[in-house]
């Protein structure tokens, strides 16, 4: 009996060992879905490049023949200003700007995992050169990977 108690004590101490469980799907990006005015899925024929206004940092380079895009979101700014440059097959360019207002909260999983920042979209504004409207589908930008914003284009 006493010996079994000693064995169990050793077992309990060994059981204190740990393992790391970081989430595998840990990308936090705002997912935009391209649509027609009527809300049907739309494949973008033009080449799209997205930059951060004021920084000229390219966050999406030459996207073509896609019906969605995922863009990073700033960690600390209250609003992101994104410049969308569309280039058609003739080389003609058009631009639209999207202002996305949001709140941001750091998200912690485990000390061994990187800290990510989750966001909640509060409002969007936009110019209307090629864009007809923006529709917020899901305000939460986190690990879920759901579509957040629908971009409805004027021209098909």
């Amino acid at each position, binding site marked *: *009996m*006493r010996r*079994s*108690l000693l064995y*169990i*004590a050793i*077992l*309990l*101490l060994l*059981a*204190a060992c*740990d*393992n*790391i*469980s970081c989430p595998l799907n840990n990308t936090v990006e705002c997912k935009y879905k391209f649509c027609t005015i009527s809300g049907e899925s739309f494949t973008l024929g033009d080449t799209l490049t997205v930059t*951060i206004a004021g*920084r000229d*940092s390219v*966050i999406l380079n030459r996207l073509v023949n896609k019906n969605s895009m995922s863009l*990073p979101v*700033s*960690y*600390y*700014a209250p609003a992101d200003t994104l410049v969308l440059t569309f280039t058609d097959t003739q080389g003609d360019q058009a631009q639209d700007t999207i202002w996305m207002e949001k709140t941001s*909260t*750091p*998200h*912690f*999983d*485990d*000390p*061994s*995992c*990187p*800290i990510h*920042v989750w966001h909640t979209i509060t409002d969007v504004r936009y110019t209307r050169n090629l864009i007809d409207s923006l529709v917020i589908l899901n305000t939460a930008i986190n690990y879920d990977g759901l579509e957040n914003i629908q971009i409805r284009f004027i021209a098909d």
Partner: protein
Amino acid sequence: MVLRIFRYALLLISLPIALQAQTVKEEPKKPRFFGIAVGADLVGATMKVTGCDWSQMEVFGRLAFRDKFFPIFEMGLGEADHEGRELDNRFHTRAPYFRIGCDYNMSKNHNGNRFLLGLRYGFSAFNYDITSPSALSDPYWGTSMPVDYTGLHGRAQWVEAVIGLETRLWTIVRMGWDMRFKFRISQHTDAIGAPWYVPGYGKNASGSTWGGTFKLIFDI
């Protein structure tokens, strides 16, 4: 002839002993109606001394009714100071926790050994810190902020199913161990994230976990 006499003599000598043994067997020792015990968990103390990332110093008070029912109150101080393996994120907490429950002795013999099954309800309200010497940098916008989230508030409730053994070492001193399957019934944490460790519950990776104690017990 001599051998036969020796056999009879041996039988006569051993007869009272055999009768005495039979008497003892027929009248088992009656358990005390009421008793009180206090004790402490040695596993948590050992984890603390050996510098584990988390530990819980725990004491308990227990009643005993007819060596069958053991209502018990456990309280302890849980603490964790854990740094990530490849990152320098740090989690810290230090807070009390409480459990209340009851054990039932499955053993029919009242010879000092006990085989216990029991349940516990556990509760803890605590503050925790998530910090890092490295700032959290935004790779696209080029900004950074320190990771210094302190005083985050959390609370948790859980239930434990307990199985354990106990034995009397001598007079009032007992020793025992138990293993516990713990499952969380509720948890409130800060929006930043759940705590890596909950005092009394243990590592908080999932809604259930295993734990155990190795106890030194004093009957008073």
